């Protein structure tokens, strides 16, 4: 076999300005550790304009008469732009800033010891986006505020930044009042409530639950015996019904022989079902009638206890309520307040990016027997990405990663209509509008649960998140980043018609304990 390599090298020799070499003092040297490379794109504009981009290799499941396994789906990528905010869907060339000198993107190598979840014996490569501590600039904080605000700040009808504070305070006060009501009802003795429930469950519920379980386990064998006897009796009646008229002279055949046996088994089965029902009724009675010294039933106390746990997290003598919904919402308070104060003072947030793509899919429509065209037009406005990172390292010859994407967009609009929608109203009618879109996607947690990309021996792509087990689950649940998705307002069709609003969407605190994705060649 002949091997040839055609290489094109472009060697660039810049000029070196040779100034006088001066010895660096300690202070200067200590500043120049060169741990990372700062990357900034200033006044950036990327636009494919009139260039034609085609995505190939995607097939539909629609057969084409056995020539191949599926028909090609032609994807024309007719629009793709990344530019500054205010570009009007990429039509006005607006320079965008990706990072800045004081807040650059950074590519760096770090020792594993820099992270608690990664072993000290390895080094890792990290790419992270700019970091901001100011509440208004920090994407995570700002998105939190935007989630309560719901509308896009600065747009018509959305000029009072304190609306978010009001919304948050009303949620906090509702939750706090629920908590106070519960504490008041039990005179603040939440630990006694918990103890009382536990002792009642141990004394009354657990023994009865065992009875229920035993009774329940006896039903299936009784049913099987009945069914077997029914088969042996010639299946002369519907299963479960007894033989009533047996023989010419009365009912003797119904008490003897195979029919008699079957009738006995039916009685046995019904008796078992009855026993089970009695046991269940007794269990329900115990929930209702096991009272505490103030006459509160166990079922009421259990419901109140569950509500309290979700509001406060843990039950403890001080009623600190430190880990539940109340604390989570109160934890948002400082961030939301800070952003509201900064916006109300007239301070503005840095401009984000506008990112958009338009695709045309040519898909075979089996019903019509012809190809049809589908469109998708995605426009994101005012995107900021700070707080995102990707860590890569190698362990046992495998590529491991930890990944976090923080993506906030003032608006994400997804249209599905092509050139047929030639007016703004028509385009709006086929568009999904999402305001204050915030996705914080975290995949992997150090070496406890690394994100692994691999290619299997049979040539398929595989992505795996695994590793949480009995030895490390506490670390995982205490420390692994969660994923969030907030959309302040979702609207289908014309943005001005309130009837089209679908409300908001929140996916809170999502964590995957196990995930495995494998491609399969069709």
């Amino acid at each position, binding site marked *: 076999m*002949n*091997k*040839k*390599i*055609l*290489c*094109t090298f*472009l*060697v*660039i020799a*810049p*000029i*070196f*300005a040779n*100034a*006088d070499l001066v010895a660096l003092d300690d202070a200067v040297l200590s500043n120049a*550790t*060169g*741990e*990372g*490379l*700062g*990357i*900034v*794109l*200033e*006044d*950036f504009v*990327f636009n*494919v*304009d*009139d*260039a034609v*981009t085609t*995505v*190939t*290799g*995607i097939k539909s499941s629609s057969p084409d008469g056995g020539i191949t396994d599926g028909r090609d789906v032609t994807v024309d*990528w007719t629009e793709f732009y990344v530019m500054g905010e205010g570009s009007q869907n990429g039509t006005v060339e607006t*320079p965008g800033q990706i990072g*800045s*000198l*004081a*807040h650059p993107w*950074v590519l*760096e190598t770090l020792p594993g010891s820099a992270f608690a979840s990664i072993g000290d014996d390895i080094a890792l490569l990290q790419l992270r986006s700019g970091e901001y501590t*100011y509440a208004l600039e920090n994407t995570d904080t700002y998105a939190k505020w935007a989630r309560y605000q719901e509308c896009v700040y600065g747009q018509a009808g959305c000029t009072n930044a304190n609306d978010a504070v009001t919304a948050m305070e009303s949620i906090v006060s509702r939750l706090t009042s629920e908590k106070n009501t519960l504490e008041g009802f039990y005179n603040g003795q939440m630990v006694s409530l918990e103890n009382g429930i536990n002792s009642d469950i141990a004394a009354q519920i657990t023994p009865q639950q065992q009875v229920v379980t035993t009774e329940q386990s006896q039903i299936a064998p009784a049913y099987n015996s009945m069914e077997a006897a029914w088969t042996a009796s010639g299946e002369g009646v519907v299963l479960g019904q007894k033989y009533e008229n047996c023989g010419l002279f009365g009912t003797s055949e119904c008490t003897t022989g195979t029919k008699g046996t079957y009738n006995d088994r039916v009685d046995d089965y019904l008796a078992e079902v009855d026993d089970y029902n009695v046991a269940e009724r007794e269990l329900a009675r115990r929930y209702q009638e096991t009272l505490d010294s103030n006459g509160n039933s166990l079922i009421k106390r259990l419901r109140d206890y569950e509500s309290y746990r979700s509001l406060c997290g843990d039950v403890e003598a001080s009623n600190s309520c430190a880990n539940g919904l109340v604390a989570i919402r109160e934890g948002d308070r400082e961030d939301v307040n800070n952003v509201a104060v900064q916006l109300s003072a007239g*301070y503005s947030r*840095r401009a984000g990016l506008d990112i958009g793509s338009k695709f045309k899919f040519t898909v075979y429509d089996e019903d019509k027997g012809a190809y049809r065209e589908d469109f998708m037009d995605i426009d994101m406005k005012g995107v900021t990405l700070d707080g995102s990172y990707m860590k890569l390292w190698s362990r046992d010859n*495998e*590529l491991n990663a930890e990944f976090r994407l923080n993506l906030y967009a003032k608006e994400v609009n997804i249209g599905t209509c092509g050139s047929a929608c030639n007016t703004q109203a028509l385009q709006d009618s086929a568009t999904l509008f999402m305001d204050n879109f915030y996705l914080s996607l975290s995949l992997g947690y150090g070496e406890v649960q690394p994100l692994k990309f*691999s*290619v*299997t*021996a049979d*040539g*398929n*792509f*595989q992505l795996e998140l695994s590793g949480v087990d009995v030895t490390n689950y506490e670390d995982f649940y205490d420390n692994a980043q969660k994923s969030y998705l907030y959309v302040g307002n979702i609207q289908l069709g014309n943005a001005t018609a309130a009837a089209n609003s679908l409300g908001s969407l929140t996916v809170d605190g999502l964590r995957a304990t196990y995930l495995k994705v494998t*491609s399969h060649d069709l």
Partner: protein
Amino acid sequence: MTIRKITALLGLISSVSVFAELAPMEEAEMESVTGQGGVYLSGELAFNKDGGPLWGATSGQFDEFGSEKQVRNCGTASEPEECGIRIAAQLDQGGWYVLDDLSGGFAFEGLTLRTSFRETALNYDVRDASGNPVVEAFNKEVVEIGLPKTVSLNNFKFTLAVANSGEWKPDGTVLADGNTFQQTNLFGIQMNGDITLKGNLLLFPVN
């Protein structure tokens, strides 16, 4: 027999130095002229424009040494097309990530490369009395790559794939480990036309 040939095209760009009357410079003066040089680049890169030496789109094609090329068609049966470069990487003990059928060309004019001294930076984490980000001292030399404004793409294409062999094999080839050669094409991209790419890419060390 394995014949390896490397054809290398070296484009060396050196800048012109201007020799004026030579006079000794003060140290302070010297310091002030650092990073004033720059490079202006225009270029055109083409990969496998006319097909590579390994594969032929149809049977019966010979390379310049008279050996018959393997048949590998990256077009359709009716319109055979030469395949582009294949680059494969194995990141763990399993299979390979493949950048396949990379071919076509791109051209740009006006890529600049220089260093510039940035005295100040906007710190968005600190606000002045009127709420604007404060301007603070930066005083660092940064590498400034001026993007070329327009990049022309001429049938530039590639395919991303995963495979169980780094080398391409005809369908049904049994590999050394007993598996049959399998490649899963994730997707392919083909681009034609002019794209806009503007801005400055700044690179500098951070602590």
